[in-house]
């Protein structure tokens, strides 16, 4: 069954510019601000939690910021990082990053008090499951759809933010949230205690924690009961208006997630990566190929895309 296109519009750069709906793009325009390191905690050999003090308009789950490096450091461009948590009142912004290249290694050396340039919040957020309902009638029963969050590796961060917001959403407008976290090995499952969801499932490639499988394998194994398509979330008895899949992780994993969503006819939203320069949609540098040989800008029209719009044969990550 081919998923129909859902209520969240995803069109070409130019058309979207005209059609921008404030409810879809985050309300506040981005600002450039100075972010001060509050804490920079090593969670494992190469995973870090960065707690920044910064005055920035409220970010929504799926949005990201561009972080500049100190002047004495070699890398030139700011680096994009998903928001893992944001409390504008406390001016607290949390980023989870893995030290993999020159820029993130410089980040990993920062101590409290260090200052960084920041641009944010940027990009489009994950739509809530309720917004994705295919027919408004679905919501009539007062039941929001099931949200199934599938995170691979450091893709966990934005989905942790998403799950936390869903949990806190007013009036139970959000339905149950299943969180599936996959990693290569147990030592890399560094953020489990930060996940707040209805249920959390874990897999590792080497079986050192949770199911020994990829996170997509885990997803498929869970699919039998609760039937995602029907939205029966295990202990729920009443029928729900279906499930919505959310994914963040390596390119290969997202590609598989999309295939799965397609095969099950489920709407699916993924957060993509591309090398970025401006973060604002002005340099045209972060293009990814959509179906129909169109390009979209990850920083402005993404990073969250409905998976059926992406040309997966072309997508390789950043």
């Amino acid at each position: 069954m081919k998923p129909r296109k859902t209520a969240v519009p995803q069109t070409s750069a130019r058309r979207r510019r005209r059609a921008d709906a404030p409810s879809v793009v985050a309300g506040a325009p981005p600002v450039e601000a100075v972010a001060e390191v509050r804490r920079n905690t090593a969670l494992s050999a190469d995973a870090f939690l960065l707690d920044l003090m910064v005055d920035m308009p409220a970010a929504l789950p799926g949005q990201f910021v561009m972080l500049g490096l100190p002047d004495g450091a070699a890398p030139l461009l700011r680096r994009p990082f998903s928001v893992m948590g944001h409390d504008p009142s406390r001016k607290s912004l949390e980023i989870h990053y893995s030290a993999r290249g020159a820029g993130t290694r410089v980040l990993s050396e920062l101590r409290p008090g260090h200052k960084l340039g920041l641009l944010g919040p940027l990009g489009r957020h994950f739509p809530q499951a309720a917004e994705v309902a295919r027919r408004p009638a679905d919501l009539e029963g007062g039941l929001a759809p099931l949200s199934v969050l599938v995170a691979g590796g450091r893709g966990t961060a934005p989905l942790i933010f998403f799950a936390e917001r869903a949990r806190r959403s007013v009036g139970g407008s959000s339905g149950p949230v299943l969180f599936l976290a996959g990693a290569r090995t147990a030592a890399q499952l560094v953020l489990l205690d930060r996940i707040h969801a209805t249920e959390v499932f874990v897999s590792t490639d080497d079986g050192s924690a949770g199911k020994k499988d990829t996170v997509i394998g885990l997803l498929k194994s869970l699919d039998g009961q609760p039937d995602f398509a029907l939205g029966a979330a295990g202990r729920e008895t009443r029928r729900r208006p279906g499930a919505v899949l959310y994914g963040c992780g390596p390119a290969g994993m997202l590609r598989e997630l999309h295939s799965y969503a397609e095969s099950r006819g489920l709407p699916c939203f993924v957060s993509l990566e591309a090398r970025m320069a401006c973060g604002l949609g002005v340099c045209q540098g972060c293009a990814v190929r959509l179906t129909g040989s169109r390009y979209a800008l990850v920083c402005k029209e993404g990073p969250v895309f409905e998976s059926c719009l992406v040309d997966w044969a072309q997508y390789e990550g950043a």
Partner: protein
Amino acid sequence: MSRQRRESTTPAQGRRGSRGRPARSVSAGAGGARLPDLSVRIAGLRLSTPVLLASGVAGYGEEMGEVVDLNRVGAIVTKTLTPEERAGNPPPRLFETPAGLMNNIGLANVGLEGFLAEVLPQLKRHRTRIVVSVGGFSLRDYEKVLASVDAAGGAHAFEINVSCPNVRAGGIHFGCSASRAARVVRALRPLTALPLLVKLTPNVTDIGSVAAACVSEGADGLTVANTYTALAVDLRTRRPRLGGVTGGLSGPAVKPLSLAKVWEVTSRVKAPVIACGGISTAEDALEYIVVGATAVQVGTACFRSFKTPELIVNGIIAYMKENSLSSLQELRGTMTLAPAE
């Protein structure tokens, strides 16, 4: 077509007048002391500051409003415009190198029709000067874009991009020889009364000759320079790092190179030069002015902070005060060679 007339026909004059805001002086913030005059003239066009946003890094200025104080930049040079809408080249389009950025965007742009219908009306609402960058794959392309935009009104000057290294058979082809560059200027000069700038490629043996050829055909000024042809390879896949194979290198890495190119050009021609290449600080900008540039463009450095142009303007003001300069004219082209030379 005198400079006088050209100035009075720029739309800026009318707008400035109608709003009654003097565009001349830029405030450095607080402080009552008389401010140095930052304004510069490029052909008939007066810019309130000598710091422009380079083509391709600011789009059409729309998204920038929140993060850049556009009143502090002398002008925005728009993303190069071609007759047809272009989706651009396959990704990846960016690759970072030591102190540099390689890009191969492939002149992704809205095309003439979209520009006239959607972008230009927005641009006219800006208070900043607008320099429209004109691109193409044939002489006819350049003519079409320039004539149409000129007719529509709203632009304050044109920058002819004969130097984009990222599209086959276009752009740079015209910029790589003095005679071909001259041909473009000869064709375009009669089509507009607005200042006509030519953006040169640095990827040539003798940029001075290309500059001289453009000026002799009536170019009002030269932008020096576009990016440097560059390549990077992914060892894992043995494929180029950019979808378009080669890319153009920009950023601090190229500043010493473009400074030499600006010197070559200002030593050769009298026309005003707008320097562009790796400018990140006021010192960078001032070095170019000392070497003979009239104004500067900021590109890649915006990606580190969109406040860079504003900080550069502030830094220039501070330098002028420290050195008791009342106008940039006193600084321009004042490089002296060491006595040993």
